[in-house]
């Protein structure tokens, strides 16, 4: 087994809570965070979403931002989640100045763009948000706020963005390029993405049912999560929450938005991750599946799981019915949940499941289950055929 890279801090904000503890409470009590949109102003008020019920004004409280700031909703989530991660890792101001930052984002500050786009030319009031549309701007907002001065970049590979950010962070630490890096992702609900997925007819008007035979689409969500990764030298004196031991990225090379019937991209990503972790397939105790609850994703992922684990598929669940699909942030939220599973020896349930799909007959874990867990495989797949698998393992 590969020793992996130490995780020394984590932070999260999602529809099921602000902070790691609140998220854990919701997961262990099977208490989902889906509701109808209130903060997001849309005509699609019948579509359930995983919305964080705080306005930007409320999120800004205590952050001491200047009056004409350019922090969009995703930047605010990012600041809050990164703050918790920094706090749990016990990082000083000086530590932060030599810390790198790698963030995943799909639509950056689109929430502000769609609010002000039609008035930018006629009014000067909100022009500070023009540049904030782009994901790199959001990343710089967050890194500037926390004074992170080492290598900073943004990954945008749709719904696998944060998983790829975690992978890059682990690789940079292993290669000795960085000693400490904060990795994860952030995305907020927007009319842009809600209407996009709605026009693709893959949003469900009900609470999503991952891996269920009758699943009929996903629910969108919003949130941010970050991990602090540190080199052995820095981590040895610290409380190590878990280790990133494996990672793999591959491309399905099948279709811009749909996944292949063979799940080739997912299969290869899992294969690469297991190889890097230097463990056997049978060592995986639990899979945090991508499981968005679309017809196509869950079928393709199931096929990939059956192929890869040669029909001995370990315990698995998708937590998308708790938080909704948080797009670029999903891989980071689920990294935090995976680490919680390792720490608490609990598998969090796949809600709303009743019948396995005819084609693959896989049954996820549907109730909170206690189990000794050493290795977790976490999947994140995105548009453009982008497939990423991460492996989180107990320390030592």
């Amino acid at each position, binding site marked *: 087994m590969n020793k992996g890279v130490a995780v020394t801090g984590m932070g999260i904000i999602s529809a099921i809570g602000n902070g790691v503890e609140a998220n854990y409470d919701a997961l262990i009590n099977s208490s989902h965070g889906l509701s109808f949109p209130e903060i997001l102003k*849309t*005509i699609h008020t019948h579509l359930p979403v995983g919305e964080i019920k705080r306005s930007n004004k409320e999120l800004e409280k205590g952050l001491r931002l200047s009056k004409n700031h350019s922090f969009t909703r995703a930047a605010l989530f990012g600041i809050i989640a990164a703050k918790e991660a920094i706090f749990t890792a016990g990082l000083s101001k000086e530590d932060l100045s030599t810390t790198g930052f790698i963030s995943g*984002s*799909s639509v950056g500050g*689109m929430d502000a*763009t*769609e609010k002000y*786009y039609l008035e*930018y*030319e006629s009014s000067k009031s909100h*022009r500070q948000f*023009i*540049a904030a*549309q*782009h*994901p*790199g*701007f959001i*990343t*710089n907002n967050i*890194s*500037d706020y926390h004074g992170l*001065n080492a*290598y*900073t*970049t*943004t*990954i*945008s*590979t*749709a719904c696998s963005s944060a998983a*790829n950010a975690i992978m*890059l962070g682990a*690789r*940079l630490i292993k*290669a000795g*390029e960085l000693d400490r890096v904060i990795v994860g992702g952030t995305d907020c609900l927007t*009319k*842009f993405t809600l*209407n*996009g997925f709605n*026009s*693709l007819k893959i949003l469900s008007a009900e609470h999503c049912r991952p891996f269920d035979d009758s699943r009929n689409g996903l629910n969108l969500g919003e949130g941010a999560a970050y991990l602090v990764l540190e080199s052995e030298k820095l981590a040895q004196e610290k409380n190590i929450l878990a280790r990133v031991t494996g990672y793999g*990225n*591959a*491309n*399905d*090379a*099948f*279709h*811009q*938005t749909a996944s292949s019937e063979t799940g*080739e*991209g997912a299969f*290869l990503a899992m294969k690469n991750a297991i190889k890097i972790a230097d463990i056997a397939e049978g060592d995986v105790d639990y899979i945090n599946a991508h499981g968005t609850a679309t017809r196509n994703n869950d079928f393709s992922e199931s096929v990939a799981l059956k192929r890869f684990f040669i029909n001995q598929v370990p315990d698995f669940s998708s937590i998308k019915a708790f938080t909704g699909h948080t797009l670029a942030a999903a891989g980071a939220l689920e990294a935090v949940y995976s680490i919680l599973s390792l720490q608490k020896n609990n598998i969090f349930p796949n809600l709303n499941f009743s019948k396995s799909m005819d084609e693959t007959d896989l049954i996820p874990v549907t109730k909170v289950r206690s189990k000794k867990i050493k290795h977790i495989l976490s999947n994140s797949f*995105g*548009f*453009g*055929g*982008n497939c990423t698998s991460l492996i989180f393992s107990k320390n030592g």
Partner: protein
Amino acid sequence: MDKNIFITGIAGISAQTEEAIFSEKPYKYSKNIFSALSPDFKEYIPAMALRRMSTAIKMGLTAGKIALKDADVQIPDAIITGTGEGCKQDTEKFLESVLLQNEELITPTSFIQSTHNTVGGQIALNLKCTGYNVTYTQESTSLESAFFDAQLLFREQPKLKSVLVGGVDEVSKKITSFGYLTKFLKQKEIENLDLFSQHSPGTITSEGAFFFNLSTKNQDNSYAILKGVKIFKAETAEEITAEINNYLEKKESKIENIDAVILGRNGDLDQDKIYDELQNMIFSKNCILAYKHLVGDFNTVTGFALWLTCKIFKKQEIPNILRLNSVDCNHPKNVLLYNMSSKNNHSLILLQKP
């Protein structure tokens, strides 16, 4: 010791051509936003598919395929893309339909193609390439982030044969024109070749796609050795100078060894001050070149400078249109690219003739 990384295939689509630059007859543009010169996309992409594609996808896919062909590679082991502002044309189209149709009767095509990794995904799809595929979007260091990752990949997997790295950004009607509102663009329309004599705030912009096939195996026709890429944050010319000196030392070089420095000067008054300081201090004895008066300033434009350096290495000649001073450079062998856009985004690319 890491193996050398060679650039073995290149492609550049921009508002200029190789011929125009090296014959000292660059294309002139009289608007502050101008388009790239399109190659015949039909040679590379089926006409049916072409119709649905935005400029970024057409340019990116074509440049990717040209670079691979140039390197005689069928399918690369990995595809790493950088784009500062992504697929703006599709983003704009979809956004406008959502806003103007009040979220009703929306069609998905432009949404599907609006994600930042569309170009990287389309290249993978076109080539049936299932390898590593990541897209970076970090403003003006997006392409540099992609190169940084590629270097890491070669270090982790020395057996990789080919990594395709490229940068792409396109002009879109509204979002690009918002550059006038943010003062990124000069308020008065200028001719591109006059960029460096304006002494006013802002710059000019355009679009392009620049792809490079990287390999650890030298080929007879390799263009350049990618000695290294560095992204850093800095606020003053002194800090930038320190970063450059440290970096060159780490690469066992020094500023005296650099035959030509290619600067990302963009004609903006504030940036000019910093570039002037650098030119008077650290770069005072170097041959200094610039290129944004030819192709404008956009997030992945350093790809153009890199493409240009590859051409300069091959031809061993430097067109006068690029020169900012009269320091001789008869045999360009070591070239340093420096670019900046804000205190957060500075980049260095160090190149050597094979």
